């Protein structure tokens, strides 16, 4: 849909782009800053014009001064609306055509590693790597090719979108703008597509069918020996598909199965067959003869994850249509017959699941959500008394003061959380640091339980007047009373009274319920809490947790 929206727009010339910008009467706008070592002024016009055409909103872009990339990176004051444009010479200086052809510095690998580390530790909304040609400073073509690939690989590790086309050395030498003037529109469209601006429905989970999708063959009919996903021509497409699923899983995308099969047979197949994606890579396996729409809806509830975050892939058009009809929020794909079709799905998915950086939380996401599914099953099947259940989880909380450093995850939570978010206000790193600088504090907490680590899941930003400007908690730890415990801890140890700014949003019902539980109403207002109000609930809050501060 998004691709169609952007790429479907007519190609613009420079004057047409100027006219689109001039004629827009829309006050809606998004702002971004682009950090780079080059002149991008001509490109900015095309970015703005395409943004206006596709989203009916202007894109206000600021940039750093020409040639100040390194200083900007070292200053380390970036925000989540900042985009980084990288070129080969930003990673190895002797690859810069503008400084003339010099021999490759003997220490270039060190330089490359240092620059990689410098960028890797920072957070950008998106990084674009423009794979410009390397100057002729190599002994042979193989050496050049090898470094070109190495640079691309490192850029990929940084989470970059790689752009191979539209580079123009002639322009770069003459005016510092490295883009081909005839490809500016296409380059701008490619960038906007990857930025995925205004996408509030990022896909978080891929639900895959099994027979003739995840593997070649029909398990129930052909048995274990009749299914495969290997490099032989007949099942190669399934082998490639599994490889891609595995990569998505490593990026923090959840994988689940929804198949009309016998569960025991599916489990046996996943445990015994040498597939690229293993049994443990799936957050949940739904294998039964129920309607798939029912299975997926159930999974959505178990994971506490909205259906808008789901992608469903199945080779059976009937199943795909059923999901389209009953669960229209789910993004569906019909598994194709050949690799060309599969590549189209990959291209579309790359945009929908795009992320700029893979955090430790992302890598552990499958494990964490598995715990949620397990917990949900436990709740449904065995536990009646919540207090006993919570105690049985043997939860441990570690409170962190993130006011000084190591605050990336705490700030990320403020900017990602929708449901348990007391006011829905996003605050970028710069704003948070400013509040801290003016006497505020940022606290967070990590949670672990008998099932494993949940990571840093709750965060609060308090200003110098003891007003909680942001208070957010990840949905994966709902119904554990962590929010009460966390507040109690702060009221006991940090400040005896805390003002909380509550504002209802379209999606913060859980936060509204929290406010309502304490104050018996949940109007938009500033509430004051103390230890009397945040009392230990029936679950025996204080008995549940052990601090490891």
């Amino acid at each position: 849909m998004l691709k169609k929206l952007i790429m479907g727009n007519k190609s613009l010339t420079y004057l047409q782009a100027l006219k689109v910008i001039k004629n827009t009467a829309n006050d809606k706008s998004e702002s971004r800053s682009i950090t780079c070592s080059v002149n991008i002024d001509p490109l900015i016009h095309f970015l703005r014009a395409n943004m206006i055409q596709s989203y009916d909103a202007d894109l206000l872009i600021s940039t750093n001064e020409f040639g100040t990339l390194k200083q900007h990176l070292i200053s380390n004051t970036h925000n989540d609306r900042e985009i980084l444009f990288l070129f080969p010479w930003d990673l190895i200086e002797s690859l810069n055509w503008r400084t003339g052809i010099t021999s490759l510095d003997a220490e270039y690998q060190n330089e490359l590693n240092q620059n990689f580390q410098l960028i890797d530790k920072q957070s950008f909304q998106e990084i674009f790597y423009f794979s410009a040609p390397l100057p002729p400073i190599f002994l042979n073509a193989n050496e050049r090719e090898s470094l070109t690939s190495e640079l691309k690989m490192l850029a990929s590790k940084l989470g970059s979108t790689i752009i191979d086309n539209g580079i123009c050395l002639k322009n770069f030498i003459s005016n510092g703008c490295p883009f081909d003037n005839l490809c500016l529109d296409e380059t701008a469209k490619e960038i906007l597509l990857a930025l995925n601006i205004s996408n509030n429905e990022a896909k978080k989970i891929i639900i895959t069918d099994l027979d003739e999708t995840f593997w070649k063959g029909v398990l129930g009919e052909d048995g274990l020996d009749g299914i495969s996903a290997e490099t032989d021509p007949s099942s190669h497409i399934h082998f490639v598909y599994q490889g891609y699923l595995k990569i998505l899983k490593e990026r923090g995308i959840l994988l689940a199965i929804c198949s009309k099969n016998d569960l025991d047979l599916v489990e046996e197949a996943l445990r015994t067959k040498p597939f690229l994606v293993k049994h443990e890579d799936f957050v949940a396996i739904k294998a039964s003869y129920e309607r798939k729409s029912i299975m997926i809806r159930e999974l959505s509830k178990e994971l506490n994850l909205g259906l808008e975050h789901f992608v469903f892939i199945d080779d059976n058009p009937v199943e795909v249509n059923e999901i389209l009809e009953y669960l229209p929020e789910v993004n569906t794909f019909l598994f194709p017959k050949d690799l060309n079709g599969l590549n189209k799905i990959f291209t579309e998915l790359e945009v929908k699941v795009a992320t700029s950086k893979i955090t430790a939380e992302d890598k552990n996401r499958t494990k964490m959500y598995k715990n949620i599914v397990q917990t949900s099953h436990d709740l449904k099947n065995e536990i009646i008394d919540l207090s006993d259940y919570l105690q049985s989880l043997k939860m441990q909380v570690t409170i962190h003061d993130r006011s000084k450093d190591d605050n990336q995850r705490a700030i990320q939570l403020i900017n990602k959380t929708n449901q348990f978010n007391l006011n829905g206000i996003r605050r970028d790193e710069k704003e948070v640091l400013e509040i801290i600088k003016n006497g505020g504090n940022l606290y967070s907490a990590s949670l672990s339980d008998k099932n494993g680590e949940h990571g840093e899941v709750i965060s609060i930003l308090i200003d110098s007047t003891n007003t909680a400007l942001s208070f957010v908690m990840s949905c994966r730890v709902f119904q554990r009373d962590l929010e009460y415990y966390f507040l109690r801890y702060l009221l006991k140890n940090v400040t005896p009274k805390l003002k909380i700014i509550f504002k209802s949003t379209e999606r913060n019902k859980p936060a509204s319920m929290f406010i309502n539980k304490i104050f018996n109403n949940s109007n938009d207002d500033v509430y004051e809490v103390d230890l009397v109000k945040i009392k230990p609930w029936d679950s025996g809050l204080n008995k549940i947790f052990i601090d490891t501060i």
Partner: protein
Amino acid sequence: MKNLNALENIFIEIFDLESNHDISKLSNATQKNWDSMMQVNLIVAVESEFNISIDPDDYEQFTSFENIHQIIKKY
């Protein structure tokens, strides 16, 4: 003639001129905001509108409306 009109349009848009402005005599000596940035914009606009790739040797001649008109004729 078609090229001439198109080039006039480029100048009107880039330098934000009135449509009745006498563009034919315009040069970087007479037009106040014709700086290095505008020079880049002019080149982008000419390449983009005429779908041509101008030789960098010709960039130096991008100093007046007339010169640019002559350059375009070469492509």
